């Protein structure tokens, strides 16, 4: 119990003292996750919509592969993106490896299947008559799709929240592509991994507590937005 109590005290001290390293890690975690989820939503929501309402050959295969991509381990995504943006890779010229941008790229790739899949299933779960009804009432195809989005907005919100939860809690992509550089690419999760490796378990757990607090605040904000 000492271990848990000590970590609880440590996290309180760190929060109250606004420890510089902790603030920087929180900021990196949140900003990278927000950027990633914005990009992933811009790609994943239209992707999920297209698959849900589109009629094309191999549709079931596309859905199956999307489901499989959700199971892709973060280290594999990290490794693939690493191979692409390393100096020896095809996009090496940008010098992105070990920067926050690299983490954004990796986490975007991580979140796209999640956002797309949740969007897809929320549309499937909605009333199938929305689209044809809107069309018969004289709405243009684009207007009918927007009507559909309005109907399933809570499902899409859930998609974004699930994606956000995934990217802010993952450690594989952040560690591999960010490099855990202090004050630059060190996130909450890579900081926890580092403290654990140094044998500072209580301190690591304290950071875990802070991460959960941050996640709680973000979700409270989203919850508030949902209720309006």
């Amino acid at each position, binding site marked *: 119990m000492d271990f848990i109590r000590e970590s609880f005290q440590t996290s309180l001290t760190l929060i109250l003292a606004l420890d510089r390293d902790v603030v920087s890690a929180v900021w990196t975690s949140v900003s990278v996750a927000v950027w990633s989820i914005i990009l992933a939503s811009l790609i994943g929501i239209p992707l999920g919509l297209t698959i849900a309402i589109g009629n094309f050959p191999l549709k079931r295969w596309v859905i199956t592969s999307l489901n499989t991509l959700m199971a892709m381990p973060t280290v594999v995504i990290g490794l693939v993106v690493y191979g692409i943006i390393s100096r020896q890779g095809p996009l090496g010229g940008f010098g*992105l490896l*070990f920067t926050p941008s690299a983490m*954004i790229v990796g986490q975007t790739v991580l979140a796209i299947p999640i956002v797309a899949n949740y969007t897809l299933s929320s549309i499937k779960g909605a009333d199938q008559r929305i689209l044809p009804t809107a069309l018969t009432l004289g709405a243009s195809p684009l207007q009918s799709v927007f009507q559909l989005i309005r109907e399933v907005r809570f499902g899409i919100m859930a998609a974004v929240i699930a994606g956000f939860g995934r990217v802010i809690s993952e450690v594989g992509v952040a560690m591999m592509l960010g490099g855990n*550089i202090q004050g630059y690419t060190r996130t909450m999760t890579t900081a926890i991994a580092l403290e654990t490796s*140094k044998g500072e378990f209580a301190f690591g757990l304290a950071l875990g507590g802070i991460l959960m607090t941050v996640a709680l605040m973000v979700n409270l904000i989203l919850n508030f937005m949902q209720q309006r």
Partner: protein
Amino acid sequence: MKVARFLIFGVFAVALFYQTASAQERLKMSTTTSTQDSGLLKVLLPPFEKKHNVKVDVIAVGTGQALKLGEAGDVDVVFVHARKLEDKFLADGFGVNRRDVMYNDFVIIGPKGDPAGISKAKSAAQALKSIAAKGSIFISRGDKSGTHTKEKELWQTAGIDPKGSWYIEAGQGMGPVITMATERQGYTMADRGTFNAFKGKKTDLAVLFDGEKGLFNPYGIIAVNPKKHPHVKYDLAMQFIDFVTSPEGLRIISGYKVNGEPVFFTYRK
């Protein structure tokens, strides 16, 4: 497909924008975990960063991986500890201007009771022999780090190919391996700096064998060759190397203490 290409480009464009938004010159250095975990870099880097108005980005990994990052041109300078691997790195033309920086030594640690009786051994190789003969648990880094490279050399000297349920390849950094050895009450080899940082509160293991010439652990710093990778910040890397090996840099290193004990030693100039 056009859409997909557009989207991929878009992600990169935003990522690049994010990148340039923080425009301070950055020097990328890959190094071994011991320089970071010991806390040395926290006192060594700030004076240099202030003087030259740069940020040194530290990527702390095992020596093997640190050199690989240099080979790929993903970093500008490497700061590592495995002389043989460093020499190969230089011979292959990936690095230039290697300088000796500092040293400490490796120690073999284990449970205070010393079941394999290695404290009476005459050499490190003999110590490993008795561990193998007794079948006592030995945790190996198993990650191609400088420490792992050294350990493999010693097994070779001992004429043993370590295999069996007693020999555990952890595949992790020095800290986790010391923790694992503590939990399993086994032996392992560690650099003295990291062990000192763990000694007492975090581990009840003790140094059971040390002081042999073969356990010498020198650290070197190498600039990545700009002829292989024209994009590396060679001039900045050399300024950093000059700083680390300057009297000021060396004084910071030799004056750095953990729990009242020095961690790294510098060469007399």
